[in-house]
């Protein structure tokens, strides 16, 4: 299961990179081609490795939030329709940013207490479920469902990790989150 998840995450990330680069180059109409080209380039071996293996070495698996937001990004560019509405994206990016702010500085040694430890027990899962209920009643139902999926995936041990933090966020979505929140605010 873990292996499939990791492969899926890398495929998604490469496809998203291909779509982004195509758009950046002004070739919006050819995003499909850009995605396919990126996946093809990724598997070409060079110097005993490939972009594919390198990416797998670098990121392993993504969190559920990253996965959903990337799927939304690709969905928009493949179908032309908004898979995740603005409210949902905003709620998910805000969750990722706040979560990362609580987790990463402390994890990197800023404090003696390591909040990552909370993710091994029940506490973080309960907090995530509580947040999902709040989002539901704040009319962010899709975002609420995504958070429930986070806990479900954790319980099903979709990845090697049994830590809820790993299902909730990862550094990629945390780094992107403030920029996306700003962009969403400016577009509003």
């Amino acid at each position: 299961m873990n292996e499939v998840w990791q492969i899926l995450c890398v495929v998604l990330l490469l496809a998203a990179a291909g779509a982004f680069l195509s758009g950046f180059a002004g070739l919006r109409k050819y995003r499909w081609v850009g995605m396919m080209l990126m996946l093809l380039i990724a598997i070409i071996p060079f110097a005993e490795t490939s972009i594919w293996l390198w990416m797998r070495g670098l990121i392993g698996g993504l969190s559920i939030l990253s996965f959903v937001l990337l799927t939304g990004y690709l969905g928009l560019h493949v179908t032309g329709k908004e898979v995740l509405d603005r409210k949902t994206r905003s709620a998910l990016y805000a969750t990722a940013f706040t979560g990362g702010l609580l987790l990463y500085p402390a994890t990197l040694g800023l404090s003696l207490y390591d909040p990552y430890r909370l993710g091994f027990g029940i506490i973080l899962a309960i907090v995530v479920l509580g947040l999902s209920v709040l989002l539901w009643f704040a009319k962010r139902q899709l975002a609420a469902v995504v958070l429930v999926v986070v806990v479900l995936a954790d319980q099903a041990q979709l990845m090697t990790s049994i830590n809820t933090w790993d299902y909730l966020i990862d550094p990629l979505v945390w780094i992107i989150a403030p920029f996306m929140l700003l962009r969403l605010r400016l577009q509003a």
Partner: protein
Amino acid sequence: MQRYLTSAVFVILVALLGASAWLGDFSEALSWRFTAPLASGADRHQKPQFKRGFIFEQSPTSSVHAPSIVELSNGGFMAVWYGGTREGSSDVSLYASNLDPVSNHWSVPRVLMGRQRVANDLGRHIRKLGNAVLLSDGQNNVWMFFVSTSVGGWSTSAVNLSVSNDDGQTWGPVVRVASSPFLNVSTLVKGHPFFYTDGTIGLPVYHELLGKFGELLRMDTNGVVLDKQRMSKRRAAIQPDIALLTNNQMHAVLRNTGSSRVVLQQSSEDAGNSWSSISETQLPNPDAAVSVTAVRDAMVMAYNDTDDDRDRMALAMSRDKGNTWRKFFQLEKGGVGEDGEKDEFSYPYLIRAKNGVYHLVYTWQRKLIAHVSFNDVWIGNRLQ
């Protein structure tokens, strides 16, 4: 009406999921208890024993480093280290040699794990291999935890696990230990792994990306991390090695990455679930690895007894849980080698076997792996 109904269903589902997670969490509650190693062999009627030598006379590689050693179920020992053109080069592999319990000779070094094998098993790019440590359950099963990097330097390392069910002759598929939320990077091993009484494994590790600190991982025998305890913060200390004392107490010694240039230490009264703050020993430390083991509540440490280089190696003992340490033997005195290079004796790894004999391995000039064995009577004589 339908909106209220949907909301009610959602809340009920969330509550059920929470209850399920809660019950699952209780069923997996960890017991913070371990069994202190037996004090067998600590017999004053024994003869003093001290022997030093090398695991091999001719290295299969131009550079070797970071050995560790474990006692196997047949009473023999297995040492593992990494070797290649130089530290961090792409041709570095993990090598092993066995000490036969009957002939008392080390076998010819063999490749245990190569970079390509690790890359194939993990399906990802592996740039270099590093420190490895071993754990045996005395029933032919041996766990090997080792470091690898995919991108960047050692600070981006991850820990991998391979298990042998035939006392280290063959090794199962390599799996990655998920230990860090930061893309699972910056977890490294150096200290002894050990078993808790519930069969889970304790693995002292350390973090080197931005912050530098020790951690204790608690994992099942498949390498799934069940809990993790931070030992310090900021950029104080790395490479914890843990001595298991009596009454569920632990004592850790650490490499000092700061400016004070002394060996650091800390203790736990609850089997590693919480740790005291770090304190300084009287022993010098040149920002180099140290190793400790214990019998009853007495601890023996191997360390570089200089604060500016790794050209000296010594043994020290503490009988008062780290309050005082007394150097009792100078293993290496240091100087300049025949090639004009300054000596290097580093990365000690010390264990105490079931028969009470201590086995120490360390890097010798990056060319050989030194092996020293001694017993409690010999230590007693040195301390008189």
